[in-house]
């Protein structure tokens, strides 16, 4: 079990895909809208998931450590 949870605000997500370059096993994008969704939690290190959140140009990703 991952010791963190992730929320993506799709209202503000731009679809830049930057998060997927830092945590490719965690984030994916809808092929029609490019909006990001969480496909799996725990497949990337917390450090990489935090880098993905920090990289988001819209600050649409929130990582909460449980």
């Amino acid at each position, binding site marked *: 079990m991952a010791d963190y949870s992730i929320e993506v605000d799709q209202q503000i997500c731009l679809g830049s895909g930057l998060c997927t370059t830092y945590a490719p096993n965690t984030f994916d994008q809808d092929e029609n*809208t490019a909006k990001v969704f969480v496909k799996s939690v725990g497949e990337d290190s917390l450090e990489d998931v935090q880098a993905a959140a920090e990289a988001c140009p819209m600050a649409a990703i929130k990582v909460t450590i449980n």
Partner: protein
Amino acid sequence: MAIAMVMEGRQTSSMSDNRILNIEKVRELFDLEGSYLESSGGAYRDDPNPAWNHLRETGPVHRGTVHELGKLGRDATFHGLPEEGKEHYSVFSFEACDFIYRNPEIFASAAEAPDIRGGETSVFNTMLTMGGAEHRRYRALVQPSFMPAKAEWWLRNWITSTIDELIDCFINDGKAELNTDFCAAVPVLTITGSFGFTVEQALEVRNAVSNAMRIVELLQPILADRRVNPQDDLISVLAHSEITDEDGTTQVLSDAEIYSFSVLLLAAGSGTTWKQMGLILNILLNNPELLARVRDDRSLIKPLIDEAVRWVPTDPMFSRWVTQDVEMFGTTVPAGAVIHLCLGSANRDPARWDNPDTFDIDRKAKPTLAFGGGPHVCLGMHVARAELTGGLNALLDRLPNLRLNPEKPAPEIIGYYERGSSALHVLFD
């Protein structure tokens, strides 16, 4: 040596036998040292970073432009310049640049909002200069074509064949000049191909980057064709995109709107990746041990690209227009000013990276500002990465014992607001 381009994979409208890019023209268009790019400081060949480091330490916000403060010693123009009659400020730390990108209401992308339905077609009358909800609506139309999962589509349709056929042109010579004959050609042929232009038209399009009406003229018959005969390319995506306005009405993009997208994407897509690929090859060729390491372990190409765009981003400065008085990092910046973000300096901020001036592909990747940030973050960054990765892999695969030609000058990093490599003369077995 001429680049003989036999682009089997591309639909060409004029199937003459003479499908050859004029190499002299390529060199003129893509010569950083030549007159074409003199306005952005192309002949500059020093290292701007010591001056930028000092400005970061003594700022991070200063009054003036980056090239004045950095003591370039001559005038230069780029995004947000010259903007005569306005006050100019520049910022040099990562935190300050990031703050500006993330607050687009205070720091707008233009002095005035564009009018792409009615205004004159130009690179500055595009989504580049839009703000807020309007920008989101337009960007959302093209974002799916540029997401990482689409890299394979770009590679299959345009990038891989371009790369292979360019290398075919010189592989039997044992030597080449990669900066122009390879790095410059890959992105321009990729982006023009995605708009349905023939190889013959590619350089004409590049030449017309500052003459939007010429691009429109060239694009008009292609767009008309794709309206009725959509193909598997970007211009067809645009031709059949629908935009939903604020009032909820949905309509197909007009020709004017598509031309606006086109001039922006063609301009942005044909120059930056060229220079960044040249910079990466410059770094590798000047560091044979690093080149050998990357050749033997291709998983290092990703960290190599990450570190190169951090260490020397090809476009190290972009600008924003200040919409209200703002107190930031100890300085009050007034409404009406133009503020310049020195991304080259932000990417070497010691508050964020240890030994930031050292080029080190083993450092843990951290988000940089190489592709900008905020809602206008580079649309084409994943296509650029696909071009860089594909290009580097192909060169390392097909040119054994790739090395600098000792009889030619060693390549230098040159340019001020557009940084790139001087000629990359190489030998191979």
